């Protein structure tokens, strides 16, 4: 019963925060709202005995939102707290599609004759997760590592305007970086 109440509160919070993301008038607030929504879902995970995953979700998302805030200020040079905004397009279509999607999903959730539960959760979920990662689903985690590797490389390639040869010279012997070159035509 308590679980139910907690769930409903968290659910309401998650959805409300989600709605808030696109209704508040500054990007900073939107970021906070998104973080709240994630935290709410992360806490919901705890209701299902998924302490590990719940904590991870909360931690990662809070970190991510922090990064997002920093990113906006540092890289894009805007003060999110001060910039009021209403930058939307095609609200009508977006709303139609969103509502339609919700109706379809909700109808599916309500009317699909979900099968009965098979099996029970492992006694120690975290151990079970660990075993799955290390045994039956090892390939998943093995593949995640090149994904992260690729992400680092690709993100750097995209984000960094100048590479090592700009900083250190074509033979990598220079010690100081030269002035930045204009963008766009450097290859």
């Amino acid at each position: 019963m308590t679980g139910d109440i907690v769930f409903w509160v968290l659910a309401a919070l998650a959805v409300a925060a989600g709605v808030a993301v696109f209704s508040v008038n500054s990007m900073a607030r939107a970021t906070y709202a998104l973080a709240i929504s994630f935290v709410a879902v992360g806490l919901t995970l705890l209701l299902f005995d998924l302490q590990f995953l719940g904590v991870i979700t909360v931690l990662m998302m809070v970190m991510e939102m922090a990064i997002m805030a920093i990113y906006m200020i540092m890289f894009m040079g805007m003060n999110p707290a001060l910039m009021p905004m209403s930058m939307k397009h095609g609200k009508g279509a977006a709303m139609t599609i969103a509502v339609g999607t919700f109706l379809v999903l909700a109808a599916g959730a309500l009317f699909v004759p979900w099968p009965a539960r098979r099996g029970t959760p492992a006694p120690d979920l975290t151990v079970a997760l660990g075993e799955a990662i290390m045994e039956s689903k090892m390939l998943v985690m093995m593949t995640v590592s090149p994904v992260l590797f690729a992400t680092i490389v690709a993100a750097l390639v995209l984000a960094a305007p100048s590479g090592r040869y700009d900083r250190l010279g074509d033979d990598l012997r220079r010690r100081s970086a030269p002035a930045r070159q204009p963008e766009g035509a450097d290859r």
Partner: protein
Amino acid sequence: MRPLALLPEICLLVGAVVTLLAGSFLPRERQWVARLITVAALLAAGVSAAVALGGPPRTAMMTTFAVDTGTGILRLVVVAATLLVIGLGVDELAGTKRESETYTLLLLGALGALVMGGTIDLLVLIVGFLLGSIPLYGLIGMVRTPQAAEGVLKTYLLGALFGIVLMLGVTVLYGIGGATAYADLTVGLAGAPAAAVAFGLLGVLAGLLFKAGGVPGHFWVPDATQSAGTTAAAFLTTVPKVGALLAAHRLMTIVPGSVDWPLLVAVLAAVTMTLGNLAAFAQTDVRRLLGWSTVSQVGYLLLPVAVAGGTTAALASLLVYLGGYAVTNLTAFAVVAAVPGRRSVEDYAGLAASSPWLGAALVVSLLSLVGTPPTAVFLGKLSVFTAAWDGGLAWLVVVAAVNTVASLFYYLRWLAPAFRREEPTEPARRPAPYATAAAVLGGIGVLTLGLLVAGIAPMLGTVLVAP
């Protein structure tokens, strides 16, 4: 576990790491060492894949990865395609600031395609999707032009959306199927509610269609192809498709009969090929034209996917087409890479006269894309049409044939100026040597595949017997 069964994949991964590391310490003009490392890694992967080819079908890493003929040929195609991409890209990349990074990303993207195509577990499929997508973003944005930025933006945002849809689909399938491994899912989905199966299937399929560049996930293809560097464009229109389509085929084999998925795939195939062809009609930029052309090709490639369960020939035909398409498409891009100054169709005026070899390669590749014998795609089209007809989709075959005729129109629009006698307005620059070599090599490959497929035919026979 059998990690050694994944030797080709491991070769690529190790190659990517070593390439990046080596590249970090190489002077700008000596990055060819990194290129050599990449090529070596690819060759090692290719050799190990070829060695593994004859073996019996089995799974690796528990039940998450299939090592069968499909994977075997996928590996060969991906490795060969990536080698060809590197070959045609040497002129463009050599000595640039991010040459070694490009090779790293190419290797990782190829690895992603392999993982996607080879996996028989939905979880690995998600990760494979990411591994296939992320290097692409980096590759598209590599040239850092405003256009490329736009291209990468669209690719990324579409990729993110379809990734989410893919994960949603996986979630639903897992929920009702109780597992993520295909072998277990086949059992689990058998009695599952059809609507939920349909939803989950659609989600996963949508994600794969984004990778393949089919409707509705095709929007990024022409933009990215047009804006990215030639090397990246060649890669992104070839390698990810190969993996995604094989993955789609594998996916279809687990869906229970309660869902009329063949019809869905057939309709999507018809829409994809028609849209791609219609949109390609009026293109003047050859890259964009090729981008749309690859969209239409995906439509044809979806034919065997649509009959994945209906006929045993589906997989064989898909593989034949994939191989043929990869070589053909890369040959066309090699020609584009060889004459980087020529952007529009009209720019190609007099190409055949100034460089007959390139002209020949262009003819071979475009006619192959059309599906004229004795080229590789003709064989692909033949087997694909046959399989689709055999699987009960004769109407789709007719649609595909009509589309083929329509496609001829824009391919010829490119070919015709190339063979026009025209006095060059400016002194013609010498075509890029490596790309030219790649084009000629590709052209020979197209013809060889088209004519001498007998060599690999026995292998396809085993595909027929043991799907």
